[in-house]
Each structure stands twice: as C-alpha cells, then as structure tokens.
C-alpha cells in the first residue's frame, strides 16, 4: 500500500496552486497522490482509485450506512469521543485480503485503531448463476446450485431439489429422505469443522487451521466415496439422490464419527478456556436479536444471539423431525457464542447421523416416477417406454408444472432458500437464491462499527461467510 500521510504541508501547497478550481473529484484524487521514491516530488497517481457509486461518503451524507451500522435499528454500541480529524482515514480491506474469506471488500473508516464505519462491497465473485439456472434444465440445475455455497453443497442441492419436488408434487421413498439427511448433516459437520479451522487461524490460533482441515478431510473422503467428488457433488437431485450408498458405508460413518468427535474434544480443550482466545472473542462483534431479525440473520449467528429458531425443528424437511436432537442457543450474540453454538451444533449433527445410521430404512433411494427418475440401465434394453423416458429426461429434462414455490433448509450458515418460478417446460423461469451469507455480510457494519481492527477480523471470521453464496 502506497498511502501517504495527508500532511498539512502538502495540503497547503496544492491549495496555493489552484484553490478555486479544485472540484470535489480533484480534491479526492489529490489524496491519492504518491511521492516519487526518495524525493520530495509528488507524482500524480495515474490510476487514482475511483470508487464510483461505492465510495464511502461523509457521515452525514450516507444514510444507508447509518442504517447498516445499526443506529436506526438498535444502538448497542457506545459512541466514543472523536479523535482529531487528521487521524481519520478510509482504507480498503480486501478484496484480496486473506482474512476476508474470499473476495469480500470492506471499506473501513478508521480513527487510529478504531473502526468507525464499515462498508461491505461485494460482487467480485458474481457469475450470474441465477441467470445460468434459467438456461439449464431441472436435471442440470443441481450441478449449478451446488457451486453457490461451496462449503455446503448438499444443502444447496437439497433446497433446489425440494423446491422442484414441491412444484412436481411428488413424495420420496423413506430411504431417499434418510440419505439426504445423512449427507446434509455430514456436510454441516464438515462446514463447521472448516469454520473452527478458519476462525482459529483468523484469531491467531494457527494450529487450529491444520486440525480443522485434518478432520474435515475424513468427512470429505466419505463424500468422495459416496458421490465421486469432494465438493460440488450433484448428488441430491430432484426425485431422490443420484446413487445408493456404497457397501460398507456404515463402517465408514462410524469411524468418521469417532475421528471427528475426538477432534472436536481436542479443539474445545485447546480453545474454550484459552485466555487469548477468550480475550479476542468475548463481547466482540455483538449482534442483538432485534438486529438479527431486521437483517435476516438466521442459523448459528441468530441462535448465538438467543433466538431459538431452527428450521429443522420449526419447518422440518425430509423427515428430520424423526430424529432426536437439541438446538443449542447462546445468550450474548458475540463471537465466542457463535463459536460455541457451532461446536455444540456439530455434536448435535453427529447425534442425528448416529440415529440415521441405526434407522436407515431399506427401499429405493429415488422416486419411481418415470417422468422424474431415469430408468435403470437394464430396463432400457427391454422396454421401449423406458428408452423413450430416458431419452426425454436427458435431452429435454423434467417437465415441471407452472407455479411459484419457495422452500428452505437449515444450512450451516442459516436459511438456504430457493425461490423458483416455473411457467411450465423443463427450465425454470426464474430461480432466486436466499443466501444466508448475503444477509450476514449486510449485517457486518452493525457488528463491527466502533470496534478495533482486530475485533473486526474476529467478527468477520465468526460469521463464516462464503462469498460464492453472497455473490452467486
């Protein structure tokens, strides 16, 4: 970063030269001038940053940011006395900062070490996946959605498949539902393991990074065995799942659960009472329940703030209500509660997985509706109809009746919802994704304003944003 301090001397020189002609834009540009190395000469910065519409405006001109900071919602932070204006500066954190979990850019107004205002700027990973979805058939759709929140691909596939099934009005065999629950809960485990890893690293517990990934790897190995891929599985599809579980999957899950729960014990030993970790997390990045509701924060962040809300309990899907599990909630809504809620959730997921293991029903792993599920390979040689169905499914896709549908699942980061509009035919007319990370990024200013830079990193880590989900 070649930022130069805005010394009064330099300001005066420029003002003397052209006091009247300096427009607002020039005035801004002037601040970006840099010095020629080793001289007193100033060098105009040819490609001065132009923030365009995303520029952080002065406080009294930026009502949107005031709302986001939480002033209009709930004033839960103390306004500290201002430091002198000269010490105030606006810097960019990101888009390439390693602590921003992807290409998130934060414009931060700093007064010394204190963060006054934060403006999240997103869109760097926007690839138009909602537009792409309109060109893909429902059969191809799950390959697209699985790439959005790439740390919880099964949840994306599940939300998409359930929404399509809602429009189709089909019910699934019990085994299909149970496999879906097994895979999504394992995915929650993998995602929360990654959260503990990255959050540990962001806060300075560097060895956590290695431990978290180590245990996650075991889960991903199981995913690879079942679906063929470590991520972006395209395993849960409208009508069921792509394939039955492989032989001996029970042994794999049992050994995986042993490894993971031993690992989680180790993390808790490492972090829970670690004074440095506590100093960095307790009372940091607080979100009140009111703010959570206003900004659409769901999932572990909302539960850490004390909102007892879990879609698995309140609006159960795929028969998750058959399994016994608790919904852990926090009280303080700070970074530590978010961490502890996720760790508790991870154990609850293991509980669900254990029950699925014991009660896995036999039967078909996908619906037998020939308009949705392709026929088995053997049938194609025997039956003309099977051949036609196979051909139709893979050339044009599943015919979905017109209508709108919304269905959501409890992802590791909150509510993952799919808003689907069909006008008939084999492609969605419009698919909108309700992304939990998008809501979390919007609430960042409310968490971070009037805190220290170090707290900002902790708060960001605790929201566990996935930028693929934010930008889609």
């Amino acid at each position: 970063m070649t930022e130069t301090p805005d010394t009064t001397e330099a300001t005066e020189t420029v003002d003397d030269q052209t006091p009247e002609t300096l427009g607002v834009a020039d005035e801004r540009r002037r601040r970006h001038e840099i010095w020629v190395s080793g001289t007193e000469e100033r060098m105009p910065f040819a490609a001065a940053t132009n923030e365009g519409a995303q520029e952080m405006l002065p406080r009294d001109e930026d009502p949107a940011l005031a709302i986001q900071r939480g002033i209009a919602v709930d004033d839960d932070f103390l306004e500290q006395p201002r430091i002198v204006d000269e010490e105030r500066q606006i810097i960019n954190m990101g888009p390439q900062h390693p602590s921003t979990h992807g290409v998130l850019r934060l414009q931060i107004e700093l007064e010394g070490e204190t963060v006054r205002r934060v403006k999240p700027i997103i869109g760097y990973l926007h690839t138009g996946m909602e537009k792409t979805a309109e060109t893909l058939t429902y059969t191809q759709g799950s390959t697209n959605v699985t790439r959005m929140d790439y740390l919880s691909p099964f949840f994306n596939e599940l939300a998409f498949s359930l929404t399509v099934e809602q429009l189709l009005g089909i019910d699934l065999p019990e085994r299909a539902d149970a496999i879906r629950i097994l895979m999504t809960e394992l995915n929650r485990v993998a995602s929360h393991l990654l959260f503990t890893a990255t959050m540990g690293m962001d806060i300075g517990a560097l060895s956590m990074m290695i431990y978290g990934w180590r245990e996650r790897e075991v889960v991903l190995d199981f995913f690879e065995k079942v679906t063929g891929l470590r991520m972006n599985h395209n395993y849960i599809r409208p009508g069921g799942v792509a394939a039955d579980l492989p032989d001996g999957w029970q042994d794999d899950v049992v050994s995986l659960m042993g490894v993971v729960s031993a690992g989680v014990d180790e993390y808790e030993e490492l972090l829970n009472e670690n004074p440095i970790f506590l100093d960095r997390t307790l009372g940091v990045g607080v979100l009140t329940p009111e703010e959570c509701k206003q900004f659409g924060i769901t999932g572990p962040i909302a539960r850490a703030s004390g909102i007892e809300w879990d879609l698995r309990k309140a609006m159960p899907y795929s028969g998750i209500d058959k399994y016994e599990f608790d919904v852990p909630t926090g009280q303080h809504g700070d970074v530590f509660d978010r961490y502890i809620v996720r760790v508790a959730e991870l154990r609850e997921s293991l509980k669900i997985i254990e029950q699925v293991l014991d009660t896995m029903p036999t039967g078909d792993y996908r619906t037998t509706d020939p308009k949705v599920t392709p026929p088995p390979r053997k049938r194609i040689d025997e039956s003309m109809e099977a051949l036609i169905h196979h051909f139709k499914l893979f050339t044009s896709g599943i015919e979905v009746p017109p209508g709108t549908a919304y269905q959501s699942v409890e992802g590791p980061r909150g509510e993952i919802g799919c808003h689907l509009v069909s006008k008939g035919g084999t492609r969605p007319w419009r698919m909108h994704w309700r992304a939990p990370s998008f809501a979390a990024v919007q609430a960042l200013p409310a968490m971070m304003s009037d805190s220290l830079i170090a707290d900002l990193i902790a708060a960001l880590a605790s929201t566990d944003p996935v930028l693929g989900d934010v930008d889609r």
Partner: protein
Amino acid sequence: MADDRTQIDEVQDHAEEAEAASPVRDLPEVPIVASLIESFPDAPFTTAKYASSETVYHKISVPVADWVAFAAEAKDAGFDTFIDLTAIDHFSEAPRFEVALNLLSTGDAERIIISTRVPYDDPSVPTLTDVFAGANFYEREAYDLLGVEFSGHPDLTRILMPDDWQGHPLRKDYDVGAVPVEFKAGSLDV
C-alpha cells in the same frame, strides 16, 4: 408454451373458488395470518405446502399502493424476521415485474410471501428499508439485476454488477450472451 396462465390468474382463481364456496372468505387457521388477511380483505391469498413435509407457507399479493403498509402490518402482526426480497420478470405479462417479500414469524413458526406487481414503464416500488433495515441489500440486488426501482431507498446503487454496467441482466430481454472465442490457425514451430 402451452400454458399461458399466470401466477396471478391462479391466485385469483383460488380466490374465486374460495368465494364461490362460501360468501365469507376462508380465513387461514393461523391467527396471525388471519388477522393480517382481515385487514386487507381484497388481497388474493393462497397457502402452499412444502415438499416432504407438513409445513405450509402463505402467499398473498397486494397492490403496490399497499406494499409498505402491508409489510409494516405484517411486522406488527408478528412476522418480524426479514428473510428475503426478490424480483421476478414475467416478461410477456401485463404488469411485468413481480416483487416478492419473504417474512418469517419466529414466534409462531409461520412464513408469508408477499408479492406485488409493477408495470414495465414504471417499475417503481416504495422501499421497505424503513420497515426492515435488511431490505437494503436485497433491494439493491433486485434493482441491479432486474431494474426495479425502489423509491426512497437511501443508496440505490448496483451491488453485484460493476457500477458502469449497462442493463439489468436478469431481465428476460437481456441476452445470456457468449464470449466470442477466436480460433487461430495454430502452428507448433516455436
């Protein structure tokens, strides 16, 4: 497309069916939804069921004039959690754009999807940022991708596309596009 029926038609059909069945409108069994519907008696209302679940959610469409009032009323009735706001381009239909707001009542475990329609020549919907602060980013997204204007929004700028982008990509008359790839005669004599 064989079936040109719109979502609004369907919703209205359902409303007509309900009216034909009984002179008094069928109010949903859920008290908070019923009280909400009672204050807006003309709004077409349906209930849909989740797949693989007994969960239901409610859909209601309101005229754009009632948009903010309805959202505020819903918030007071208990739908206090803002979940989602999006826009849909119905292209060939008369009011072309639909804006859908998704609210959740965490107390009663109910979900309501409120929608309104605005025409192409004036795609303007009053902003909800005063009711739900979280509508800010979602309205920016709907503006960016579909060009629905949210009047009164404090910072209606593009959010996902670059600032200098032309057009609104999720509109149906916006082409998917392709990157031209130039194939050159290759040579291996390096």
